[in-house]
């Protein structure tokens, strides 16, 4: 069981900045995120895109913002459970919460801060009526262990980087790799596009474009797929595995079942005070919350995180008074033993 002071669900910018603000109050944080890396949308959707409304940064790339936030909170030694989705929450007799992920990892904390943005990123599934029947029976939406595909016939569909990269990788592992895309053009790093071309020329990848997978066939497991080119009748291709790679889309997911008041696909909070939800001890900050006048901006998430930490402090240290200290005056004492402080002025007489 992982224990911490504030359990943060979502490692996007708001969640990461919470670690810093909590650290100033000597509160320790642990973050859970369904994505395998920190940064949320900033690292998953648009790491190379500039943001212009982060105070004091006339321009910063979303990926760089993530890096800087990680660096800023580093001395407060946050824990991370990445690549796992927060699934259930249970209130304990002592008032604390236990949050369990889809992989069974348990976390316990007196305060839970949901900084889940638009929700957890889930693979987008193609609209094939029986696709769910074949999940784990030949159909997978992400590749966890490439060895599963050794000497198997594999069909990948999609036109982005992940489709290209996995087609390249698996051409070395699988017995056959077929890449199917709706267009002739692929959207990926030039290197990958060239590499697929080269492997196609060598006969190591079969390319079918423009075409779409329109049917799945198999009694108990996937045995074949149907591929259709525009204006032609479907063709059946034998395969052991079908891996559709159409990117990820965010879903509020299991959080919606936690008994929190939801409005407009977001969690209602008290914005007059501390962004607490209808369940005391559970807060919602950043894009995941809603209140009158809410703006889904990173800078608003930072503010919400800061006020939320004050409320968390009161829950964890009941009755203890708090006086705001400026970092410029007091410096920062990291949990790792480091100390940052403003250089002292030199007092020396001039003769």
């Amino acid at each position, binding site marked *: 069981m992982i224990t911490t002071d504030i359990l943060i669900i979502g490692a996007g910018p708001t969640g990461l900045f919470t670690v810093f603000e909590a650290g100033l109050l000597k509160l320790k944080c642990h973050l859970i995120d369904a994505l395998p890396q920190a940064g949320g*949308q900033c690292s998953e*959707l*648009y790491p190379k*895109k500039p943001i212009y409304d982060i105070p004091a940064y006339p321009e910063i790339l979303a990926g760089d913002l993530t890096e800087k936030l990680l660096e800023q909170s580093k001395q407060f030694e946050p824990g991370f459970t990445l690549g796992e989705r927060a699934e259930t929450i249970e209130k304990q007799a002592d008032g604390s919460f236990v949050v369990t992920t889809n992989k069974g990892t348990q976390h316990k904390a007196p305060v839970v801060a949901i900084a889940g943005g*638009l929700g957890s990123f889930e693979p*987008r599934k*193609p*609209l094939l009526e029986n696709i769910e029947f074949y999940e784990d029976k030949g159909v997978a939406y992400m590749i966890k262990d490439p060895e599963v595909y050794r000497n198997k016939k594999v069909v990948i569909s*999609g*036109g*982005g980087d992940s489709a290209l990269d996995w087609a390249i990788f698996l051409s070395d592992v699988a017995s056959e790799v077929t890449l199917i*895309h*709706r*267009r002739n*053009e692929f*959207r990926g790093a030039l290197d990958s596009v060239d590499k697929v071309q080269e492997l196609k020329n060598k006969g190591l990848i079969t390319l079918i474009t423009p075409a779409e997978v329109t049917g799945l066939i198999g009694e108990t497991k996937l045995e074949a797929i149907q591929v259709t080119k525009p204006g032609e009748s479907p063709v059946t291709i034998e395969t052991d595995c079908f891996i559709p790679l*159409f*990117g990820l*889309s*965010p879903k*509020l997911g299991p959080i919606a079942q936690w008994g929190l008041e939801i409005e*407009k*696909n*977001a969690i209602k909070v008290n914005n007059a005070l501390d962004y607490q939800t209808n369940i005391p001890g559970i807060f919602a900050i950043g894009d995941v919350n*809603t209140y009158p006048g809410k703006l889904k901006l990173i800078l608003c998430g930072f503010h919400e995180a800061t006020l939320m930490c004050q409320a968390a402090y009161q829950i964890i240290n009941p009755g203890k008074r708090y006086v705001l200290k400026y970092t410029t005056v007091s410096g920062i004492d990291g949990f790792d033993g480091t100390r940052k402080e403003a250089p002292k002025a030199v007092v020396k007489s001039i003769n």
Partner: protein
Amino acid sequence: MDQDVQIKITDRDGKLHEIAAPTDMALNIMEVVRLYELAPEGTIGICGGMAMCASCQCYVLTEHPLREMQDEEEAMLSEAFNVKPNSRLGCQIQITPEMEGLEIELAPED
């Protein structure tokens, strides 16, 4: 000066809305849909208008000349579902005075 254009938007439940879309606010179709709350918050414009999700996909029902499709939009639509020949991403279509009478239908949610 009145710079609104009248456009017709059929929402995901099939309900037709006739709305006045301002042309002087640099709004795109996705933003107009949000402005009038024609689709629940969190189901449209998820990526914020970067042509990186297809949550604002719509079908253009009239022959209005629209901004030509750029690479990003074309690539996204090539990976989206429920795509038809008249599919566009609402976030990539800015409202202009030429759009008077435009009719669109929102594509189903993924």
